[in-house]
């Protein structure tokens, strides 16, 4: 009898909990649907004016929730470098998310958030800002007008390509097989009309690639795909930084060096470069935020811990 009572009361409690949860979720879903409606209104109005008329719905007196990635993240290093804050610590009250998904979830749910993310990973749940008036699109990154982007390249000596194995890898990097991987990993492919890679079964040997840790993850993927096509060629990819990339290619330690900046001939006089792809970083905000465009100088004042009196901490500094 006791047992039955216990079981029954537990079931009742569970049902209560479940209904409570359901009530809650239906409530929240209704609010979110209404907010998405209002955001569609916002975006349709945005086409004509920089700020939508119903900007009043957004509380501009609120502090900006500044999001950032964790230390060691390639996206973070690249972003800080590109807006001119290389090597600086995060600003005060930064909220750190340890992954792309975390950043996107927070920006989607937090109306006051601002964040940066590799262009390839940005979804429709958040709003991308124009930077210095230029939209973050693949086309603008390709032609170089979008500021927060950089080339990821390999550097090599001309003579390196006389070797059939190295030549094969060089051709592979330009092939459509490689472009698929590049786009799939969230980078911007810049080779148009690429052809499929032709397998040459007689090749046998090894290739050493080292340098920029920003390009390393992608290069590792590319090398793995290449090894699948050419099982008798061994490709080793290691990090060390762009400096190592220049040095190893120049001194012939590695066949290819990886760099994540514009090629400078002074750093490796005997070498030339090939841009594997471009890396674009989008600045994203919540969909309910009426802001459309941001200046790099403003971004710098948001993310600079040493900005002092020029630091931007509230949205009304950007939305007037």
């Amino acid at each position, binding site marked *: 009898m*006791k047992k039955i*009572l*216990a*079981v029954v*009361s*537990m079931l009742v*409690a569970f049902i209560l909990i479940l209904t409570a949860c359901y009530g809650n979720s239906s409530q929240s879903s209704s609010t979110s649907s209404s907010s998405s409606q209002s955001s569609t209104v916002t975006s349709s109005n945005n086409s004509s004016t920089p700020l939508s008329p119903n900007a009043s719905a957004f509380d501009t007196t*609120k*502090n900006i*929730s500044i999001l950032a990635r*964790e*230390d*060691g*993240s390639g996206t973070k290093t690249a972003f800080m470098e590109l807006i001119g804050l290389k*090597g*600086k*610590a*995060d600003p*005060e*009250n*930064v*909220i*750190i*998310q*340890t992954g792309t998904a975390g950043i996107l*979830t*927070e920006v989607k*749910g*937090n109306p*006051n958030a601002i964040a940066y993310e590799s262009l390839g990973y940005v979804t429709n749940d958040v709003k991308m800002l124009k930077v210095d008036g230029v939209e973050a699109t693949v086309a603008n990154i390709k032609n170089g007008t979008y500021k927060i982007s950089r080339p990821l390249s390999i550097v090599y000596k001309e003579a390196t390509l006389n070797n059939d194995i190295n030549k094969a890898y060089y051709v592979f990097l330009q092939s459509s097989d490689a472009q698929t991987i590049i786009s799939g990993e969230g980078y911007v492919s810049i080779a148009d009309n690429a052809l499929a890679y032709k397998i040459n079964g007689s090749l046998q040997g090894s290739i050493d690639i080292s340098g920029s840790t920003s390009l390393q993850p992608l290069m590792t993927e590319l090398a793995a795909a290449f090894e699948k096509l050419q099982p008798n060629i061994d490709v080793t990819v290691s*990090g060390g930084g762009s400096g190592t990339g220049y040095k190893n290619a120049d001194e012939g330690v590695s066949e290819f060096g990886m760099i994540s900046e514009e090629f400078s001939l002074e750093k490796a006089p005997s070498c030339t470069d090939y841009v594997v792809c471009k890396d674009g970083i989008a600045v994203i905000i919540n969909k309910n935020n009426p802001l459309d465009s941001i200046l790099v100088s403003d971004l710098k004042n948001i993310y600079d811990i040493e900005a002092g009196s020029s630091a931007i901490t509230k949205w009304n500094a950007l939305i007037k």
Partner: protein
Amino acid sequence: MNKTFRFIKARDNIMRGIFLFCAVFSIFALGCICVFLFANGVPFIGKIGLGNFFSTTWNLNNESYGILSMIVASLYVTALATTIGVAIGLCTAISLYKFCPKKIVPPIRQMINLLSGIPSVLYGLFGMVIIVPFLRDSVSPNGIGYGILAASLVLSIMVLPTIVSVSLDSLNAVPKNYYEGALALGTTKAQSVFMVMLPAAKNGIFAAIVLSIGRAIGETMAVIMVIGGSPLMPKGFFQSVRTLTANIAMGATELRGDAATALVATGLVLFFFTLLLNISFTLLKGGFSFERKRAQKTNA
């Protein structure tokens, strides 16, 4: 006959060896972890200097590995979480002990125990999706939901099962005749529970508090998701800060070289904290069982 006997003896010895290996394995694992922590952490702290290691600046770009602000954040979060958790948990235990219908005690206990079975990442998700936005929109003065308060609230729910079950067990371990004696002297039910039973069970309750502190200081995933993660000295409840555990977990997959070793050194500090808690728990538990024995003796 002799052959069978020898076989049995050999089998016995083999099995004994296997069991001994299993027993020693956990000690071996503990030893390995200790060696790993000390061999990497101590030389690193020596290399960068105690002054750098216990400073408040954590900036990997100019080799500042100060973890003082994270120690402080860890202590704040743990203290607040334990305070909230103990306040709620102890009241729950007392109510389950004497003040609620006997029939609903088992289901309530069962459900509280169920709380301890929920994976910590779900607590983190709950905190991130429900608690943080709520704090951000309705409570926080500066529009930031992440921080010490959010982490403490999530953790206080997580430590509830420990506090309720351990303190309820220790209350139940107090001999019934204490309670009856107190009633016979003319106290009310509430007076006898609060004045007699609670003090008699105090060692067990302290043990519950120490255990929950241990859980709160060591919790990682749930905390990371609601703490914010900025390595600054905490100045208020609504400020993005970073605990020791969050520091380790955030960098573990990305950092290389010195920065990765700095995480091991952070782990060393955390290890000292938990060691301290474990020792104090053992001491308290010793007192707890002693009290029980004495009670049994007087019973007999």
